[in-house]
């Protein structure tokens, strides 16, 4: 019988939730890395027991953790006795060494002045679709790094940060983060990323050159609402069978592109609010998408104090509220951009975590919900692995 493993990153550690394919009885392990902020935990689609975690702290900086046994044990890559000595006899310990290529340069600061690029943390880890040793990291201040040795060392794909528009990128409320990395399953050279607040970008040559793909976005909070960059894209998502179709939850507006991001159109339709953070796609229905509307950019809780996931079976515009099992009164939690995921069972399971520490699951594609856990630290990220 299939199993699911839910990887949860929180403000104070990581938790791993496991269940069989019925998704009714859950085991909870953790906290792993107790007390540290765990921005993201994600497993390799090639080797599900290979899991990468971004462990971070304002005090002690970035740490990369890796598990090779499905999350039972963890280590900082490159720290085994055989790996500790570099040719000059000094230890490597470089799994947390994220250094920008060349002179980092400047980007736009909140007040419109230029500000130096400064590495702060890894927001998102995206393991390759083909090689468990290859993993991408989206970081703050916005840049894309990759490791081809299982996280022991990292190099920047600097063509992105060095794009001509770089000095116009600016931080959103959460910092200037590269938070979304989508790998095209049909074209190894094509990668999509999203940055707050710069927008979406695409490479068609494996990361050497990049182009902004923000045509059709409209953002009233920047001087030119239709500018090439400067948009606060909160999340983009794709279905693996249709990599040319992208869905976006922007700061405000839910958007859709059917030409690999070359152009976007709004599909917010009848949502009660088109502000929100996550967006995801059903595992088996490429036109079924999910968002969690939030009241506004200053009031980060659900409209009318009711936690509702909205599902569209038409790829946007027509949305239905999913409420069964979710709190429908006095609810003031938020759902962050990396905190929603889907499994690939049938029916498809949907998962999301809240800033109130609940992780909800729906084993019936959103029709009904139950909390797996209710009282974790604030949830930053949720990823699901479907295991044989």
């Amino acid at each position: 019988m299939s199993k699911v493993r839910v990887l949860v990153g929180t403000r104070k550690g990581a938790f791993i939730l496991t269940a069989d394919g019925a998704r009714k009885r859950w085991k909870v392990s953790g906290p792993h890395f107790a007390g540290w902020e765990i921005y993201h935990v994600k497993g390799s689609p090639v080797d599900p027991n290979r899991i990468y975690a971004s462990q971070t702290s304002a005090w002690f900086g970035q740490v990369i953790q890796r598990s090779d046994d499905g999350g039972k044990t963890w280590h900082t890559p490159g720290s085994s006795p055989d790996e500790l000595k570099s040719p000059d006899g000094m230890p490597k310990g470089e799994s947390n060494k994220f250094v920008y290529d060349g002179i980092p340069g400047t980007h736009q600061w909140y007040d419109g002045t230029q500000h130096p690029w400064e590495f702060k943390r890894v927001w998102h880890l995206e393991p390759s679709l083909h090689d468990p040793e290859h993993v991408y990291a989206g970081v703050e201040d916005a840049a894309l790094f990759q490791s081809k040795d299982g996280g022991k060392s990292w190099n920047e794909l600097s063509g992105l940060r060095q794009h001509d528009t770089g000095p116009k990128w600016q931080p959103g409320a959460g910092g200037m983060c590269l938070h979304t990395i989508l790998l095209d399953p049909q074209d190894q050279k094509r990668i999509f990323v999203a940055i707050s607040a710069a927008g979406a970008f695409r490479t068609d040559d494996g990361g050497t050159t990049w182009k902004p793909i923000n045509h059709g976005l409209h953002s009233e909070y920047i001087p030119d609402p239709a500018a090439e960059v400067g948009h606060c894209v909160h999340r983009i998502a794709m279905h693996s069978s249709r990599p040319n179709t992208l869905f976006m939850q922007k700061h405000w507006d839910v958007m859709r592109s059917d030409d690999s991001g070359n152009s976007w159109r709004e599909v917010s339709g009848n949502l009660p609010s088109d502000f929100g953070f996550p967006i995801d796609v059903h595992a088996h229905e490429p036109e079924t998408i999910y968002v969690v509307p939030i009241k506004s950019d200053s009031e980060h809780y659900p409209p009318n104090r009711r936690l509702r996931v909205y599902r569209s079976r038409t790829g946007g515009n027509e949305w239905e509220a999913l409420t069964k099992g979710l709190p429908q009164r006095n609810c003031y939690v938020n759902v962050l951009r990396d905190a929603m995921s889907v499994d690939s069972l049938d029916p498809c399971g949907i998962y999301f975590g809240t800033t109130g520490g609940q992780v909800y699951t729906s084993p019936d594609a959103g029709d009904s919900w139950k909390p797996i856990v209710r009282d974790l630290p604030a949830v930053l990220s949720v990823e699901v692995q479907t295991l044989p």
Partner: protein
Amino acid sequence: MIRIVLPPHLRTLARVDGEVELDVDASVTQRSILDELEARYPMLRGTMRDHVTHLRRPLVRFFVCGEDLSHESPDAPLPEAIAKGSEPFVIVGAIAGG
């Protein structure tokens, strides 16, 4: 024998309990202690000082014999009590809430 007190998060990361004890061949300074500490525990590299500049991370402090020496030169000799191990070199995460 130099005695080092790590903050709880770094003890967890380095997988040590209590104080760390190590020998420093060179003159006993902040730099020589941190060099030896990182050599013994490579997972601590980058957590106390920057990988490239070797500057102290802003929210990390170094306390010695009841004094905050965070802003002293990393190459200034430390008191004999540290070199002899009668007092520990204390690495602290600055009080900043959280």
